């Protein structure tokens, strides 16, 4: 399998208009800088975790990667081909390569469809499968790969008859039936009970091996990625502030935000009294961005010069980069 960059995102931006100024207003139009210059790469069967809190742009980024929103600037390329702006027909064909798993297992399924209809739908939309028998085979395989064994007992059920974990498996099965090469999972376990989150994460890890699928795992919970991510990218206010292998980022974080995030993750050990860096306030709104380094208003180690210039990426090692002025030495 070639190790070349299979998915490459370069300088991706998405700005939304923030309310229209009135007919007689002379103010400049304001924008929500939802995604403001994101670049990363992904290899075959690699798992990258995008970590960030609300307002960091991760959901918008997922919509851009799926082609459900048009980007304002930047490029996305898949296997060397630019897929940033595609025609409807090409976009539809692209959907067979990259599929998505959503956050809310209770809302991602149409309550009036049976499980069979749900998992079969992508095949119908893309006219895959010569006849019903073939489609049934594909549906069955996808469901079993998603852990719904034996598939038969689930086919005629409705979503409300299944638990949260089972529903999420149905969503995964519906994504797998198209045999994608990339799975984009947007907070797939945050709405499930802690005791069953592991099931779904284990499933995704397994799929990466058995089906050679690359996974982009979006989450706000660093703890759950420690287990199976190869690389981790930390996002803040529309940008990636640190990116590296999982061990790089979790054991040797460089950016102050990453350090703070890691320090507040709950650890089930009361004897471990760690130093927690609790940031004050909330993520500022992405319309009126702070000057210079976007993190400086909340940064516990901000210096005077941090409000003047935007930090570039600094290579901490071959695999590890962070955007902090304090690293520029």
């Amino acid at each position, binding site marked *: 399998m070639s190790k070349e960059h299979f998915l490459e995102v370069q300088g991706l931006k998405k700005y939304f208009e923030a309310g229209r100024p009135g007919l007689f207003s002379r103010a400049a139009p304001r924008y929500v800088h939802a995604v403001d210059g994101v670049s990363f790469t992904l290899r075959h069967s690699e798992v990258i975790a995008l970590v960030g809190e609300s307002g960091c742009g991760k959901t918008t980024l997922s919509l851009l990667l799926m082609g459900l929103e048009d980007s304002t600037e930047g490029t996305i390329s898949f296997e060397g081909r630019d897929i940033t702006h595609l025609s409807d027909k090409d976009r539809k064909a692209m959907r067979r390569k990259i599929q998505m798993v959503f956050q809310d297992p209770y809302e991602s399924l149409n309550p009036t469809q049976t499980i069979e209809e749900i998992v079969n739908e992508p095949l119908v939309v893309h006219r895959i499968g010569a006849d019903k028998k073939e489609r049934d085979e594909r549906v069955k395989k996808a469901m079993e790969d998603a852990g719904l064994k034996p598939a038969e007992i689930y086919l005629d059920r409705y979503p409300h*008859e299944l638990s949260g974990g089972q529903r999420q498996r149905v969503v995964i099965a519906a994504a797998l039936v198209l045999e994608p090469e990339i799975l984009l999972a947007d907070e797939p376990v945050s709405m499930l009970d802690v005791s069953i989150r592991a099931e779904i994460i284990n499933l995704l890890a397994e799929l990466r091996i058995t089906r050679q699928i690359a996974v982009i795992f979006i989450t706000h919970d660093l703890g759950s990625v420690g287990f199976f991510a190869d690389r981790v990218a930390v996002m803040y206010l529309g940008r990636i502030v640190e990116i590296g292998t999982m061990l790089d980022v979790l054991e040797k974080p460089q950016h102050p935000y990453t350090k703070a995030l890691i320090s507040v993750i709950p650890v089930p050990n009361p004897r471990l009294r760690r130093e927690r860096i609790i940031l004050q306030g909330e993520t500022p709104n992405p319309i009126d961005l702070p000057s210079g380094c976007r993190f400086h208003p909340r940064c516990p180690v901000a210096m005077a010069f941090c409000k003047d210039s935007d930090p570039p990426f600094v290579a901490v090692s071959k695999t590890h980069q962070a955007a902090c002025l304090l690293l520029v030495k």
Partner: protein
Amino acid sequence: MAVQITTKVNPPNRFEKFWVTMRGNPIGLTGLVMLVSIILIAIFAPVIAPHQYYTSGDVSSSDIYNAPSSTHIFGTDDAGKDVFSEFVTGARVSLIVGFFAAFISVAIGGLTGIVAGFFGGRVENVLMRLTDIMLVIPDLPLMVVIIALTKPSLLNIIFVIGIFGWTTTARIVRSQTLAVKSRKFVLRARAIGAGNFHIIRHHILPLVLPILVVQAVLTVSYAILEESTLSFLGLGDPTAPSWGQMLNFAFSRGAMSTGAWWALVVPGLGIVWVVLGLTLFGQGLEKVLNPRLATHHLMPGRPVLAAKSGTSVQAKKALLEVQNLSIHYVNDEGKPPARAVENVSFTLERGELIGLVGESGCGKTTMMLALLRLLPAAGQIVDGRVFFNGKELTALSEEEMNDKVRWSGISIVFQGAMNALNPVRTVGEQIAEAIIKHIEEFPRDQVQTRVVELLDLVGITADQKDNYPHQYSGGMRQRAMIAMALACNPQVIIADEPTTALDVMIQAQILELLDSLRKKLGLAIIFVTHDLGVVAEICDRVLVMYGGVTAEYADVDTIYNQPSHPYTQELIKAFPDLTKPKKKLSSIPGYPPQLDDLPAGCRFAPRCPSAFARCHIEQPTLHKLGDTHLASCHLVEVPK
């Protein structure tokens, strides 16, 4: 390992489900019966009517306005004709006009609503402006004008009523379409690659159809009323007499002065019968398709049953003592009650922080509501006692709870602060309200200052005081709730999942806030959560619940480092630990038990990795494992 499925028997098909729901729906059923009866009468009118309406041969002037008799069971009208025959014939006209006009309205309205709602933008704007204009223009006068200027034929009337009746349907269908369009499964369909037509057909339509059906039923009743009104005003088709026309003739040809009440009452009752039937049927349908919760928070609660266990006075010297509390959710259908909480005991000292841990549905929120006697209408405390400051809470009346305990003694921070704050009142007002209610001597002019103080304690600036909840961010709302909970200087605060659905950083802020408040003000806090990691950071003691019973109760160190109950052990194993990142994650297979269908024996046995034969037969008692360590498991039974 295969995953269990929740239902055990063959699921009923759609018709069976419909029949069962209709059976429990007397209003809808009555309406249906009323409708079917009148439709049958209309269909068989020529057979039923004893006298042909159109023949005027055998009628003389002495037949005018005869009272009901054996030959004319509803009497005769102004022209001497049999009212009963006219009635059944008239039924046909009224129903036909009603149904066809409604069909036109529903078709136009449904189409407009879906197109406007789905495509949005300019299309929606134009369609909705048109709808608004038509909605505002009074329809009866315009209908009168149009029919007066054209020919009052049946077709005309159907058409005119049809083109005026679509506006309400369009608005309702549009808002439903908008609601469905924004749901995640529509986004998922797009992500799969489905086009507009596919989405409308498979996702929008099935979810809009129920509302459309209800609207259709209501539109038919509207159409029938309009037709009868127009006919009454003299604009009906003279060749196709309807009930409205019968009333027109009766009213304008002296039925009142002659006292011929039958000519006025009978046709009117016909209209009322059909419209009421439709309305009831529509109400019934709506109840099935759009079920509303059957209870609300102001319904009277159930009485606390006399305690069979526990002591009559407070046993230990604690601030709050819960003894053997059991709570059931009772139903009126004779089914067994859901045993939400069974025999749970714990204590809370001044300044202590206890973590109440368990999965969703394990009874923790139920128990917290019971402490404040806020159980929903179906909930009932069936055993046990709660002592607070020496007083027996479970024996107090509503007034005493309101005056002495609620908020001033024990307050609560609800899960999901968005909905716990009234959206049409300012945050400041809602905090002030608590102060005014409980601290009578508080000088009125100082209340606002106190509100600002409280907001400051939780890190909200004074200028936010007069803002509305929707203007606050999620983290701010949670902090505002905490400020409100502190308003009357309570001794205990119950925090029910206060950090669920918040970002990790905000979560950390809230936890730090609660901990510092506890230390500063000497508060005792009950922290309810399903998140073990959170508990480890700040709690002194932990109560782990499973399926409504106590699994384990100990201080925090013991719980994490020497857990004795298998459930506690599994919970700790399932929690991802960053300090050991490559360890494989484990989970607990299976599902929490159904509280109205509990297994015999230990409630955790079906999912327990260490279960043996006895576990499935006998429920374990709470064993004492140390001075302050309790666990309910057969495995920890200390042999005598």
